[in-house]
Protein backbone atom coordinates (compact mmCIF):
# COMPACT_ATOMS: atom_id res chain seq x y z
CA UNK A 1 0.00 0.00 0.00
CA UNK A 2 1.54 3.29 -1.08
CA UNK A 3 1.55 6.26 1.27
CA UNK A 4 1.68 9.84 -0.03
CA UNK A 5 3.57 12.59 1.78
CA UNK A 6 3.92 16.32 1.08
CA UNK A 7 6.60 18.93 1.77
CA UNK A 8 6.34 22.62 2.52
CA UNK A 9 8.24 23.17 -0.78
CA UNK A 10 5.16 21.82 -2.61
CA UNK A 11 6.48 18.40 -3.52
CA UNK A 12 4.70 15.09 -3.15
CA UNK A 13 6.25 11.66 -2.49
CA UNK A 14 4.48 8.36 -3.04
CA UNK A 15 6.35 5.72 -1.06
CA UNK A 16 6.09 2.01 -1.70
CA UNK A 17 8.61 -0.70 -0.82
CA UNK A 18 11.37 1.77 0.14
CA UNK A 19 11.10 3.66 -3.18
CA UNK A 20 9.64 7.18 -3.35
CA UNK A 21 8.17 8.61 -6.54
CA UNK A 22 8.55 12.40 -6.33
CA UNK A 23 6.77 15.23 -8.12
CA UNK A 24 5.50 18.74 -7.56
CA UNK A 25 1.97 19.48 -6.44
CA UNK A 26 -0.79 20.91 -8.53
CA UNK A 27 -0.48 24.11 -6.51
CA UNK A 28 3.22 24.33 -7.44
CA UNK A 29 2.67 23.77 -11.17
CA UNK A 30 0.01 26.47 -11.17
CA UNK A 31 2.43 28.91 -9.55
CA UNK A 32 5.17 28.06 -12.06
CA UNK A 33 3.00 28.31 -15.16
CA UNK A 34 3.60 26.50 -18.44
CA UNK A 35 6.74 24.38 -18.25
CA UNK A 36 8.97 24.17 -21.31
CA UNK A 37 11.93 22.14 -20.02
CA UNK A 38 12.77 19.76 -17.19
CA UNK A 39 16.42 19.09 -16.37
CA UNK A 40 16.34 15.50 -15.11
CA UNK A 41 18.86 13.82 -12.78
CA UNK A 42 21.00 10.84 -13.72
CA UNK A 43 20.16 7.41 -12.35
CA UNK A 44 22.45 6.46 -9.48
CA UNK A 45 22.96 10.04 -8.29
CA UNK A 46 22.99 10.21 -4.48
CA UNK A 47 21.10 13.11 -2.95
CA UNK A 48 20.97 14.60 0.51
CA UNK A 49 17.77 16.24 1.66
CA UNK A 50 17.78 19.83 0.33
CA UNK A 51 20.00 19.13 -2.70
CA UNK A 52 18.69 20.30 -6.07
CA UNK A 53 17.35 17.19 -7.78
CA UNK A 54 15.60 18.67 -10.80
CA UNK A 55 15.31 22.08 -12.43
CA UNK A 56 11.94 22.92 -13.96
CA UNK A 57 11.85 25.77 -16.45
CA UNK A 58 8.79 27.80 -17.33
CA UNK A 59 8.61 30.28 -20.21
CA UNK A 60 9.91 32.92 -17.83
CA UNK A 61 12.09 31.34 -15.14
CA UNK A 62 14.00 28.33 -13.85
CA UNK A 63 13.12 26.83 -10.46
CA UNK A 64 14.90 24.18 -8.40
CA UNK A 65 13.10 21.12 -7.07
CA UNK A 66 14.87 19.82 -3.97
CA UNK A 67 15.35 16.29 -2.70
CA UNK A 68 12.78 16.00 0.12
CA UNK A 69 14.74 13.20 1.81
CA UNK A 70 18.12 11.45 1.43
CA UNK A 71 18.41 8.74 -1.19
CA UNK A 72 19.62 7.52 -4.55
CA UNK A 73 17.93 8.21 -7.90
CA UNK A 74 16.63 4.98 -9.42
CA UNK A 75 14.74 6.48 -12.35
CA UNK A 76 13.93 9.84 -13.94
CA UNK A 77 10.75 10.45 -15.90
CA UNK A 78 12.21 10.52 -19.42
CA UNK A 79 8.82 11.30 -20.96
CA UNK A 80 9.25 14.86 -19.71
CA UNK A 81 12.16 15.44 -22.11
CA UNK A 82 9.73 15.45 -25.00
CA UNK A 83 6.64 16.64 -23.12
CA UNK A 84 7.43 18.86 -20.11
CA UNK A 85 3.82 20.09 -20.11
CA UNK A 86 2.83 16.78 -18.46
CA UNK A 87 3.94 18.39 -15.21
CA UNK A 88 1.23 21.00 -15.74
CA UNK A 89 -1.50 18.70 -16.95
CA UNK A 90 -0.83 15.76 -14.60
CA UNK A 91 1.39 17.00 -11.77
CA UNK A 92 0.53 14.20 -9.37
CA UNK A 93 0.33 11.45 -12.03
CA UNK A 94 2.14 11.12 -15.37
CA UNK A 95 4.09 14.31 -14.58
CA UNK A 96 6.16 12.70 -11.80
CA UNK A 97 9.82 13.78 -11.81
CA UNK A 98 12.01 11.04 -10.35
CA UNK A 99 12.09 7.87 -8.22
CA UNK A 100 14.54 7.42 -5.38
CA UNK A 101 15.57 4.65 -3.03
CA UNK A 102 15.19 6.01 0.48
CA UNK A 103 18.33 6.09 2.62
CA UNK A 104 16.48 6.68 5.87
CA UNK A 105 12.76 6.03 6.06
CA UNK A 106 12.55 7.77 9.42
CA UNK A 107 12.89 11.11 7.55
CA UNK A 108 9.35 10.58 6.24
CA UNK A 109 8.01 11.26 9.72
CA UNK A 110 8.89 14.95 9.27
CA UNK A 111 6.67 15.34 6.19
CA UNK A 112 2.99 16.28 5.88
CA UNK A 113 -0.01 14.17 4.98
CA UNK A 114 -2.54 15.47 2.47
CA UNK A 115 -4.76 17.14 5.08
CA UNK A 116 -1.80 18.98 6.61
CA UNK A 117 -0.58 20.07 3.16
CA UNK A 118 -4.00 21.41 2.22
CA UNK A 119 -4.01 23.43 5.43
CA UNK A 120 -0.46 24.63 4.56
CA UNK A 121 -1.47 26.08 1.19
CA UNK A 122 -4.69 27.46 2.68
Amino acid at each position, binding site marked *: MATTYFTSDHEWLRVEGGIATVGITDYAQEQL*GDLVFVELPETGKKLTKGDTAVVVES*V*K*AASDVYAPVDGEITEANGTLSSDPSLVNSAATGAGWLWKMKLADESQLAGLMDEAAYKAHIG
Partner: protein
Amino acid sequence: MTGDTKHLPLEDIHMAAGARFGAFAGWSMPLTYPAGVMKEHLHTRERAGLFDISHMKLFEVSGPEAVALLNRACPLDAGALEISQSKLSFFLNEAGGILDDLIVTRLGDIRFMVVANAGNAVADEKHLRALAADFDAKVEPLDRVFLAIQGPEAWAALSRAGIETGSLLFMHGVEPRKNWFMSRSGYTGEDGFEIGLPEADARDLVAKLLDDERVLWIGLAARDSLRLEAGLCLHGQDITPETDPASAALMWAIPKDIRASGAFIGADALRAAVERGPAQKRVGLKPEGRQPVRGGAALFDADGKPAGHVTSGGFGPSAGHPVAMGYVAAPLAKPGTRVFADVRGTKIPVDISSLPFTPHRYRKG
Protein backbone atom coordinates in the same frame (compact mmCIF):
# COMPACT_ATOMS: atom_id res chain seq x y z
CA MET B 1 9.02 47.68 -1.71
CA THR B 2 5.44 47.01 -0.59
CA GLY B 3 5.07 50.47 0.95
CA ASP B 4 5.50 52.39 -2.29
CA THR B 5 4.42 49.83 -4.86
CA LYS B 6 2.27 51.54 -7.47
CA HIS B 7 -1.04 50.06 -8.52
CA LEU B 8 -2.72 50.19 -11.92
CA PRO B 9 -5.89 52.31 -12.09
CA LEU B 10 -7.71 49.29 -13.56
CA GLU B 11 -6.36 46.82 -10.97
CA ASP B 12 -9.89 45.81 -9.94
CA ILE B 13 -10.62 44.69 -13.51
CA HIS B 14 -7.45 42.57 -13.59
CA MET B 15 -8.33 41.01 -10.24
CA ALA B 16 -11.81 40.17 -11.48
CA ALA B 17 -10.18 38.59 -14.56
CA GLY B 18 -8.16 36.30 -12.26
CA ALA B 19 -4.73 37.85 -12.86
CA ARG B 20 -1.71 36.69 -10.94
CA PHE B 21 0.28 39.80 -9.94
CA GLY B 22 3.98 40.41 -9.55
CA ALA B 23 6.31 43.35 -9.05
CA PHE B 24 7.86 45.05 -12.08
CA ALA B 25 9.64 48.42 -12.13
CA GLY B 26 7.96 49.45 -8.87
CA TRP B 27 4.47 48.46 -10.05
CA SER B 28 2.19 45.60 -9.13
CA MET B 29 1.49 44.17 -12.58
CA PRO B 30 -0.61 41.30 -13.95
CA LEU B 31 1.93 38.60 -14.89
CA THR B 32 -0.51 36.03 -16.19
CA TYR B 33 -4.23 35.45 -16.42
CA PRO B 34 -5.92 32.06 -16.06
CA ALA B 35 -5.19 31.14 -19.71
CA GLY B 36 -1.47 31.07 -18.87
CA VAL B 37 1.57 32.52 -20.62
CA MET B 38 1.68 29.99 -23.46
CA LYS B 39 -1.95 30.47 -24.55
CA GLU B 40 -1.76 34.24 -23.98
CA HIS B 41 1.32 34.48 -26.19
CA LEU B 42 -0.15 32.39 -29.02
CA HIS B 43 -3.50 34.15 -28.81
CA THR B 44 -1.78 37.50 -29.38
CA ARG B 45 -0.05 36.20 -32.53
CA GLU B 46 -3.24 34.58 -33.83
CA ARG B 47 -6.00 36.95 -32.76
CA ALA B 48 -5.80 39.98 -30.43
CA GLY B 49 -4.23 40.49 -27.01
CA LEU B 50 -5.10 43.34 -24.65
CA PHE B 51 -2.34 44.63 -22.38
CA ASP B 52 -2.53 47.17 -19.56
CA ILE B 53 0.72 49.12 -19.90
CA SER B 54 -0.28 52.03 -17.66
CA HIS B 55 3.06 51.62 -15.88
CA MET B 56 4.57 53.38 -18.88
CA LYS B 57 4.50 57.16 -18.92
CA LEU B 58 3.27 59.63 -21.51
CA PHE B 59 4.78 63.12 -21.62
CA GLU B 60 3.56 65.95 -23.77
CA VAL B 61 6.38 68.23 -24.88
CA SER B 62 5.24 71.51 -26.37
CA GLY B 63 6.26 75.08 -27.02
CA PRO B 64 8.04 77.21 -29.64
CA GLU B 65 11.33 75.40 -28.89
CA ALA B 66 9.94 71.87 -28.45
CA VAL B 67 11.84 70.72 -31.56
CA ALA B 68 15.10 72.18 -30.26
CA LEU B 69 14.56 70.59 -26.82
CA LEU B 70 13.98 67.15 -28.31
CA ASN B 71 16.95 67.51 -30.68
CA ARG B 72 19.11 68.21 -27.61
CA ALA B 73 17.60 65.41 -25.51
CA CYS B 74 17.55 62.73 -28.22
CA PRO B 75 19.62 61.73 -31.28
CA LEU B 76 16.64 62.81 -33.34
CA ASP B 77 15.66 65.29 -36.03
CA ALA B 78 12.34 66.20 -34.42
CA GLY B 79 11.70 68.94 -36.98
CA ALA B 80 11.91 66.39 -39.81
CA LEU B 81 9.06 64.30 -38.39
CA GLU B 82 5.80 64.69 -40.23
CA ILE B 83 2.74 65.38 -38.14
CA SER B 84 1.56 62.03 -36.73
CA GLN B 85 4.89 60.33 -37.43
CA SER B 86 6.51 58.35 -34.57
CA LYS B 87 10.14 57.46 -34.13
CA LEU B 88 12.10 55.28 -31.74
CA SER B 89 14.75 57.35 -30.00
CA PHE B 90 16.79 57.49 -26.80
CA PHE B 91 17.95 59.61 -23.94
CA LEU B 92 21.72 59.17 -23.85
CA ASN B 93 24.18 60.14 -21.15
CA GLU B 94 27.37 62.08 -21.93
CA ALA B 95 29.15 58.76 -22.50
CA GLY B 96 26.60 57.75 -25.14
CA GLY B 97 25.01 55.18 -22.83
CA ILE B 98 21.27 54.59 -23.13
CA LEU B 99 19.33 56.13 -20.22
CA ASP B 100 16.04 55.07 -21.78
CA ASP B 101 14.46 54.22 -25.11
CA LEU B 102 11.41 56.22 -26.08
CA ILE B 103 8.85 56.68 -28.81
CA VAL B 104 8.50 60.29 -29.92
CA THR B 105 5.41 61.25 -31.98
CA ARG B 106 4.79 64.62 -33.57
CA LEU B 107 1.27 65.75 -32.72
CA GLY B 108 1.50 69.25 -34.19
CA ASP B 109 4.00 71.89 -35.30
CA ILE B 110 5.21 72.49 -31.75
CA ARG B 111 3.64 69.57 -29.87
CA PHE B 112 5.06 66.06 -29.33
CA MET B 113 4.17 62.94 -27.35
CA VAL B 114 6.99 61.06 -25.64
CA VAL B 115 6.35 57.56 -24.29
CA ALA B 116 8.86 56.39 -21.68
CA ASN B 117 9.52 53.12 -19.85
CA ALA B 118 8.04 52.56 -16.39
CA GLY B 119 11.31 52.00 -14.58
CA ASN B 120 12.82 55.21 -15.95
CA ALA B 121 9.77 57.48 -15.93
CA VAL B 122 10.74 59.48 -12.85
CA ALA B 123 14.35 59.94 -13.97
CA ASP B 124 13.22 60.74 -17.53
CA GLU B 125 10.90 63.47 -16.30
CA LYS B 126 13.62 65.03 -14.17
CA HIS B 127 16.11 64.82 -17.05
CA LEU B 128 13.73 66.36 -19.58
CA ARG B 129 12.56 69.11 -17.21
CA ALA B 130 16.16 70.07 -16.42
CA LEU B 131 16.92 70.35 -20.14
CA ALA B 132 13.68 72.24 -20.78
CA ALA B 133 14.89 75.08 -18.54
CA ASP B 134 17.14 76.17 -21.42
CA PHE B 135 14.35 76.15 -23.99
CA ASP B 136 11.00 77.80 -24.50
CA ALA B 137 9.20 74.48 -24.10
CA LYS B 138 7.29 72.67 -21.42
CA VAL B 139 7.11 69.06 -20.31
CA GLU B 140 3.81 67.78 -19.05
CA PRO B 141 3.41 64.24 -17.64
CA LEU B 142 -0.06 62.97 -18.52
CA ASP B 143 -2.36 61.08 -16.20
CA ARG B 144 -3.61 58.33 -18.49
CA VAL B 145 -4.50 54.68 -18.58
CA PHE B 146 -2.34 53.16 -21.31
CA LEU B 147 -3.58 50.08 -23.17
CA ALA B 148 -2.02 48.04 -25.95
CA ILE B 149 -4.05 45.87 -28.28
CA GLN B 150 -1.87 43.67 -30.42
CA GLY B 151 -2.36 40.97 -33.01
CA PRO B 152 -3.80 40.45 -36.50
CA GLU B 153 -7.38 41.09 -35.31
CA ALA B 154 -6.57 44.11 -33.14
CA TRP B 155 -7.84 46.58 -35.75
CA ALA B 156 -11.09 44.66 -36.22
CA ALA B 157 -11.72 44.45 -32.48
CA LEU B 158 -11.14 48.20 -32.16
CA SER B 159 -13.48 48.83 -35.07
CA ARG B 160 -16.21 46.79 -33.38
CA ALA B 161 -15.60 48.86 -30.25
CA GLY B 162 -16.24 52.00 -32.29
CA ILE B 163 -12.66 53.04 -33.00
CA GLU B 164 -11.67 53.20 -36.66
CA THR B 165 -7.96 52.80 -37.33
CA GLY B 166 -8.10 52.41 -41.12
CA SER B 167 -5.60 54.94 -42.45
CA LEU B 168 -3.22 54.90 -39.50
CA LEU B 169 0.07 53.21 -40.43
CA PHE B 170 2.78 51.60 -38.30
CA MET B 171 4.73 54.13 -36.24
CA HIS B 172 2.15 56.87 -36.57
CA GLY B 173 0.03 58.35 -33.80
CA VAL B 174 -3.02 60.57 -33.57
CA GLU B 175 -5.40 62.07 -31.02
CA PRO B 176 -8.76 60.53 -32.00
CA ARG B 177 -10.68 61.99 -29.04
CA LYS B 178 -10.11 64.57 -26.33
CA ASN B 179 -7.19 63.48 -24.13
CA TRP B 180 -6.66 60.32 -26.19
CA PHE B 181 -3.44 59.33 -27.91
CA MET B 182 -3.46 56.33 -30.23
CA SER B 183 -0.50 55.01 -32.17
CA ARG B 184 -0.08 52.01 -34.43
CA SER B 185 2.83 50.47 -32.60
CA GLY B 186 3.64 47.93 -29.95
CA TYR B 187 6.05 45.54 -28.34
CA THR B 188 5.08 42.21 -29.88
CA GLY B 189 6.12 42.33 -33.54
CA GLU B 190 2.44 42.18 -34.54
CA ASP B 191 0.19 44.82 -36.02
CA GLY B 192 -1.38 46.66 -33.13
CA PHE B 193 -2.12 49.86 -31.27
CA GLU B 194 -1.22 51.65 -28.08
CA ILE B 195 -3.88 53.93 -26.64
CA GLY B 196 -3.46 56.44 -23.81
CA LEU B 197 -6.80 57.69 -22.47
CA PRO B 198 -8.56 58.90 -19.32
CA GLU B 199 -9.55 56.20 -16.84
CA ALA B 200 -13.32 56.50 -17.35
CA ASP B 201 -12.92 56.16 -21.13
CA ALA B 202 -10.53 53.24 -20.58
CA ARG B 203 -13.08 51.36 -18.47
CA ASP B 204 -15.63 51.80 -21.21
CA LEU B 205 -13.23 50.71 -23.96
CA VAL B 206 -11.98 47.68 -22.01
CA ALA B 207 -15.54 46.50 -21.39
CA LYS B 208 -16.32 46.75 -25.12
CA LEU B 209 -13.10 44.99 -26.14
CA LEU B 210 -13.49 42.14 -23.65
CA ASP B 211 -17.03 41.60 -24.90
CA ASP B 212 -15.36 40.49 -28.16
CA GLU B 213 -14.33 36.83 -28.19
CA ARG B 214 -11.26 37.72 -30.28
CA VAL B 215 -9.78 39.71 -27.37
CA LEU B 216 -8.04 38.27 -24.31
CA TRP B 217 -6.14 39.97 -21.47
CA ILE B 218 -2.40 39.29 -21.77
CA GLY B 219 0.01 39.55 -18.84
CA LEU B 220 3.58 40.75 -18.52
CA ALA B 221 5.01 37.22 -18.86
CA ALA B 222 3.67 36.86 -22.41
CA ARG B 223 4.54 40.50 -23.15
CA ASP B 224 8.14 39.54 -22.42
CA SER B 225 8.16 36.35 -24.54
CA LEU B 226 6.44 38.20 -27.40
CA ARG B 227 8.93 41.07 -27.44
CA LEU B 228 11.89 38.70 -27.13
CA GLU B 229 10.75 36.67 -30.16
CA ALA B 230 10.29 39.98 -31.98
CA GLY B 231 13.90 40.91 -31.11
CA LEU B 232 12.85 44.04 -29.22
CA CYS B 233 14.99 45.35 -26.37
CA LEU B 234 13.98 45.65 -22.73
CA HIS B 235 15.68 48.65 -21.13
CA GLY B 236 17.52 47.62 -17.98
CA GLN B 237 18.34 44.23 -19.50
CA ASP B 238 19.26 44.42 -23.19
CA ILE B 239 20.12 48.09 -23.22
CA THR B 240 21.39 50.03 -20.21
CA PRO B 241 23.33 53.23 -19.41
CA GLU B 242 26.44 51.08 -20.01
CA THR B 243 25.50 50.21 -23.60
CA ASP B 244 25.46 52.69 -26.48
CA PRO B 245 23.27 52.49 -29.61
CA ALA B 246 26.22 51.25 -31.70
CA SER B 247 26.90 48.18 -29.55
CA ALA B 248 23.15 47.67 -29.12
CA ALA B 249 22.75 47.47 -32.93
CA LEU B 250 20.24 50.32 -32.78
CA MET B 251 22.00 52.88 -34.97
CA TRP B 252 19.17 52.46 -37.51
CA ALA B 253 17.08 54.58 -35.13
CA ILE B 254 19.44 57.55 -35.57
CA PRO B 255 19.21 59.48 -38.86
CA LYS B 256 22.51 59.70 -40.80
CA ASP B 257 22.84 63.49 -40.69
CA ILE B 258 22.13 63.46 -36.93
CA ARG B 259 24.88 60.87 -36.43
CA ALA B 260 27.25 63.19 -38.30
CA SER B 261 26.29 66.59 -36.96
CA GLY B 262 23.53 66.35 -34.32
CA ALA B 263 24.08 68.31 -31.09
CA PHE B 264 22.32 65.79 -28.84
CA ILE B 265 23.67 64.82 -25.43
CA GLY B 266 26.23 62.06 -25.87
CA ALA B 267 26.94 62.94 -29.52
CA ASP B 268 30.73 63.18 -29.15
CA ALA B 269 30.97 59.92 -27.22
CA LEU B 270 28.70 58.12 -29.66
CA ARG B 271 30.69 59.37 -32.67
CA ALA B 272 33.89 58.17 -31.01
CA ALA B 273 32.29 54.78 -30.27
CA VAL B 274 31.18 54.41 -33.89
CA GLU B 275 34.65 55.44 -35.06
CA ARG B 276 36.34 52.84 -32.83
CA GLY B 277 33.76 50.18 -33.65
CA PRO B 278 31.97 48.51 -30.75
CA ALA B 279 33.89 45.84 -28.82
CA GLN B 280 30.67 43.89 -28.31
CA LYS B 281 27.45 43.75 -30.29
CA ARG B 282 23.90 42.81 -29.45
CA VAL B 283 22.76 39.67 -31.27
CA GLY B 284 19.99 37.10 -31.29
CA LEU B 285 20.90 33.78 -29.68
CA LYS B 286 19.29 30.45 -30.48
CA PRO B 287 20.12 27.73 -27.95
CA GLU B 288 20.34 24.21 -29.36
CA GLY B 289 17.72 21.83 -28.00
CA ARG B 290 14.88 22.64 -25.60
CA GLN B 291 16.67 24.07 -22.58
CA PRO B 292 16.20 27.82 -22.14
CA VAL B 293 19.26 30.01 -21.58
CA ARG B 294 18.44 32.93 -19.29
CA GLY B 295 19.65 36.50 -18.88
CA GLY B 296 22.93 36.63 -16.97
CA ALA B 297 24.37 33.42 -18.44
CA ALA B 298 28.00 33.77 -19.54
CA LEU B 299 28.95 32.94 -23.15
CA PHE B 300 32.16 31.27 -24.27
CA ASP B 301 33.72 30.68 -27.67
CA ALA B 302 34.73 27.27 -29.04
CA ASP B 303 38.08 27.52 -27.19
CA GLY B 304 36.35 28.17 -23.86
CA LYS B 305 37.34 31.86 -23.77
CA PRO B 306 34.79 34.42 -22.52
CA ALA B 307 32.74 35.63 -25.50
CA GLY B 308 29.97 37.71 -23.98
CA HIS B 309 26.76 37.27 -22.02
CA VAL B 310 23.04 36.72 -22.34
CA THR B 311 20.81 39.70 -21.46
CA SER B 312 17.34 38.16 -22.02
CA GLY B 313 16.37 34.57 -22.54
CA GLY B 314 13.42 32.29 -22.33
CA PHE B 315 11.22 30.09 -24.44
CA GLY B 316 9.54 31.31 -27.61
CA PRO B 317 6.07 29.76 -27.78
CA SER B 318 5.60 30.76 -31.44
CA ALA B 319 9.19 29.98 -32.42
CA GLY B 320 8.84 26.60 -30.69
CA HIS B 321 12.33 26.72 -29.25
CA PRO B 322 14.31 28.69 -26.67
CA VAL B 323 15.15 32.25 -27.71
CA ALA B 324 17.60 34.74 -26.25
CA MET B 325 19.57 37.85 -26.95
CA GLY B 326 22.82 39.13 -25.60
CA TYR B 327 26.16 40.67 -26.37
CA VAL B 328 29.11 38.92 -28.00
CA ALA B 329 32.57 40.10 -29.03
CA ALA B 330 32.15 41.95 -32.34
CA PRO B 331 34.10 39.40 -34.47
CA LEU B 332 31.63 36.69 -33.35
CA ALA B 333 28.52 38.74 -34.12
CA LYS B 334 27.64 36.92 -37.35
CA PRO B 335 24.57 34.71 -37.77
CA GLY B 336 25.53 31.05 -37.60
CA THR B 337 28.55 31.51 -35.32
CA ARG B 338 28.41 28.99 -32.50
CA VAL B 339 29.13 29.96 -28.91
CA PHE B 340 28.39 28.17 -25.64
CA ALA B 341 26.28 29.32 -22.70
CA ASP B 342 27.08 28.21 -19.18
CA VAL B 343 23.85 26.98 -17.61
CA ARG B 344 24.40 25.65 -14.09
CA GLY B 345 27.82 24.30 -15.09
CA THR B 346 26.73 22.72 -18.39
CA LYS B 347 27.83 24.28 -21.69
CA ILE B 348 24.81 24.64 -23.98
CA PRO B 349 25.58 25.23 -27.68
CA VAL B 350 24.05 28.53 -28.83
CA ASP B 351 24.02 29.87 -32.39
CA ILE B 352 24.16 33.57 -33.16
CA SER B 353 20.86 34.22 -34.92
CA SER B 354 19.43 37.11 -36.87
CA LEU B 355 16.56 38.95 -35.21
CA PRO B 356 13.59 38.75 -35.04
CA PHE B 357 12.88 35.07 -34.33
CA THR B 358 9.31 35.52 -35.58
CA PRO B 359 8.72 37.83 -38.57
CA HIS B 360 7.34 41.28 -37.83
CA ARG B 361 3.86 41.81 -39.24
CA TYR B 362 3.56 45.57 -39.06
CA ARG B 363 1.05 47.47 -41.18
CA LYS B 364 3.37 49.77 -43.08
CA GLY B 365 1.12 50.75 -45.96
